[in-house]
Each structure stands twice: as C-alpha cells, then as structure tokens.
C-alpha cells in the first residue's frame, strides 16, 4: 500500500483493497504469526465522537500486533473542550504515536487533519462523510461469504447520511457488482456519491421498496435509519417500518443471501434473523480486528 493516510475509500484501488484483504486472511488463519509484529508501536486514538466497535477493534488490532494504544479519551476531558483547533490537536498528538486513528463529527476533518501530520492518519468516520476501514471489513466479509465479483448487492436504509454506505458504494465500483440502493426518498444517496458512482461507470439502481429486488440479491447491507433525520416521531415510525427485515421476509430470498449491518442496530433487523444462515453481522464486526491488523501492518511498514 502506497498511501500515507487512509481518509477515504476513494483512494483505495482494487489492488490496495485486495492486498489488505489477503493480508487479513493470513492474519485470521494464523494470528500468532503477527503477535510481535509491531512490538514498539503506539497507536493514537482520537475519538471526538463516541465509538464502541471501531475504537475497541482498533485497540484490539494494535495490541494483537504486539503494540499498544494511547487514547485521547472523551472530548469532555480533553483540550478540545478548551477551544483548541483540530489542526493543533493532531499536531500535538502525532508526537505521541506512530499512527493516528481519528473520528470527528465534521465532514472532511480527516482530510484536513492528514495535511498537518507526518504519521499515518486513519479516518474512523468524519460526520456523514467516509468510514474507509469499515468498508475494508465489509468487503472482507462480502468476499468470505459471497465473493466480490459478479455480485448483486442491496444497500438499504439511511443512504444520505450513512458514511459506511458512502465508502462501501464507492469501493464496490472496483469490482463487478450491481448495486441496488433502497431508501425513503428523503434519505437517498447524496449528490457527491451519486456523482462519483456515475463517474466510475457503476451500474446503480435506486428503489423505495425492497420487495421487488430481494430475490435477486447476494448480499443485503442494512443500515440504521435515525430518528433525528425526521421531523417527528410519527413520520419516523411510518418510514422506518418499511425498511425492517425479519426471518419471514427472508423466506423469499436466495438461500445464500448474506445479511450485513455495520451495527449498532435498533430494530431494522429482527432478532429472529440472528439464528438464520443469512446473518453475517456479528462475524462482520469480528472481522474488524484482522482487517484493521492488516491495515495497520501495511501502514506501519510491515514486510510481507
């Protein structure tokens, strides 16, 4: 991998993606071979927004490579609370770590921060922008379950503000995929994502209902529709209910359909789906560790 920073899925070529996924497969097959790979390395965690999965899996990944973490802690107790700019914060923190992982509520924050630091900076979510490492573990999960070429995928839920969707949709243009986007009209893909997919010559189709296309899907990627995107509770309940799946709905799908979700879910996937062979979302979350190990290994200069 030739990148210094990972700020967007747009910078990842097919070769980059396959390189990380192949390395992640090797790590998953024999984690002990990587246990002392980066013994002296420190990963700086800068989460300006709450995170459970991403933060914990980055921590686990760094520790399983033999390294350790230094954590900025919650914003409430940091210098940010005192009015420090992000540019200053990252310039200070880069002196404490060999690589940085950052989540921040403003779109473009990772790109900006990367311009101020020399150590590799990884975007762990910038507002409604991008979340490229989630995409890598999503692609890993898709590859394991359905393969990445000749794939028909449905991406459903909040496509407008869902950063995991924006990153995944772009990354999938590197592969032979047919992408279906299912959402309420008010939460369709934003203009910039649509523009990029069009520029990539990607075949995309947009729907407001899942019913017609469900039987054709190899993968259904479900995301959460957030209450705060709607003017009132009634409107939310009315719309969100149309984008929930349960085991009964999945009776009319391919047996091999893989159901994914970046988590946390609320009620968009019923718990009765968990016990079906379709459910891959917990596996998906667990894949965050080997995939982030592979990415950190590449960025920290691990020899192949």
């Amino acid at each position, binding site marked *: 991998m030739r990148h210094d920073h990972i700020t967007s899925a747009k910078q990842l070529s097919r070769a980059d993606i396959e390189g990380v996924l192949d390395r992640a497969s090797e790590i998953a097959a024999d984690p002990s071979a990587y246990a002392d790979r980066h013994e002296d390395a420190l990963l700086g965690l800068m989460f300006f927004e709450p995170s459970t999965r991403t933060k914990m899996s980055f921590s686990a990944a760094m520790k399983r490579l033999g390294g350790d973490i230094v954590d900025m802690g919650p914003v409430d107790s940091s210098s940010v609370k005192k009015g420090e700019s992000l540019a200053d914060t990252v310039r200070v923190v880069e002196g404490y770590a060999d690589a940085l992982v950052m989540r921040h509520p403003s*779109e*473009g924050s990772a790109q900006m921060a990367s311009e101020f630091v020399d150590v590799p900076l990884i975007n762990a979510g910038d507002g409604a922008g991008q979340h490229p490492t989630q995409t890598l573990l999503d692609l890993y999960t898709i590859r394991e379950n359905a393969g990445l070429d000749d794939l028909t995928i449905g991406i459903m839920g909040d496509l407008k503000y869902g950063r995991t969707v924006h990153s995944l949709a772009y990354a999938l243009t590197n592969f032979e995929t047919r992408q279906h986007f299912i959402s309420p009209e008010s939460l369709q893909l934003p203009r910039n994502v649509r523009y990029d997919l069009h520029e990539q010559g990607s075949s995309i189709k947009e729907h407001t209902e899942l019913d017609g296309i469900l039987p054709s899907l190899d993968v259904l990627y479900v995301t959460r529709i957030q209450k705060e995107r709607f003017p009132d509770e009634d409107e939310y309940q009315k719309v969100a209910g149309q984008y929930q799946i349960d085991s009964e709905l999945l009776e009319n799908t391919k047996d091999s359909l893989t159901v994914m979700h970046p988590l946390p879910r609320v009620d968009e996937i019923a718990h009765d789906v968990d016990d079906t062979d379709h459910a891959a979302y917990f596996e998906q979350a667990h894949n965050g560790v080997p995939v982030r190990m592979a990415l950190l290994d590449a960025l920290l200069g691990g020899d192949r």
Partner: protein
Amino acid sequence: MTDEELRVSKIENGTVIDHIPGSQALNVLAILGIDGTGGETVSIGMNVPSDRLGRKDVVKVEDRELSQSEVDVLSLIAPAATINIIRGFEVVEKHRVERPETVTGVLQCSNKHCITAEDEPVDSRFEVLDDGVRCVYCDSITRENIAAELLI
C-alpha cells in the same frame, strides 16, 4: 463593439466583461472588489437580450485590468464570459475565461458540517467541475448559486 455593449457608453481604457449570465453583474463586481467606494467608473448592463445566453449582463470598468485570480473566480459564476481589454477606445485583447482546476480561499463550502466551516487554519479549496465546484475536504458538490458562497 456589439450593439448590446453600446447600450452603455464606450470606455476609453479598461475592461469590458461580456456574456455574464443575466443578473450576475453585481456578483462580478463583488469578485473585483468594486463596491463604489474606490471611485472607479463602472457601467453595468443587466438582462440585456443575448442570442447565446437569453439574457446576459455586461460590466465595464474603466482604467482597470483583471488579475488571473480574479478571472479564475469569475469563471465559476460566468463560465461563458469574454474579457475585452480596451485601450484608446479599441479592443486590444479579447479572451474567454478559462476554468481553473482548483480555486483556493475564494469560496466557502456550502456544507455547514464541513471542517472548513470550523475555526481551523486552512483555506477552503475546491476542485472545479464542468458544472460546479467540489470541496476537497468534505467532497460536497455545489452547483447552484455558487456566487452565494463567495468569500470576497
């Protein structure tokens, strides 16, 4: 000079910016930093009938030629503009604006959640597309009403 340009008086020396989209003349003056307090002699034609644009604006500024950075910004709101340099009542140079690949520090991002809207030590920077501009930080595309985002 065309008939349309003659609707306002000829100038001896200066710049005539023609083929500005209708109703954008005041934004062009804003780009040039002209608000009347500098004493420049300025003539404006607004919503003049035009074969090419339907309605166009024309701006004439006496004793003033444009810098490249002014032309770059101008191209964003008036991509079809022609710039005529006038000396001694004659057009001595005539050229179209060319859209630059990027513009820095002249527009604010229309996305209110963009990091450039925060108090950070960076200039806004946009990639110029065929039909709009794109923030290099948050990736948002602005197509309509770019003039509303001018920082100058």
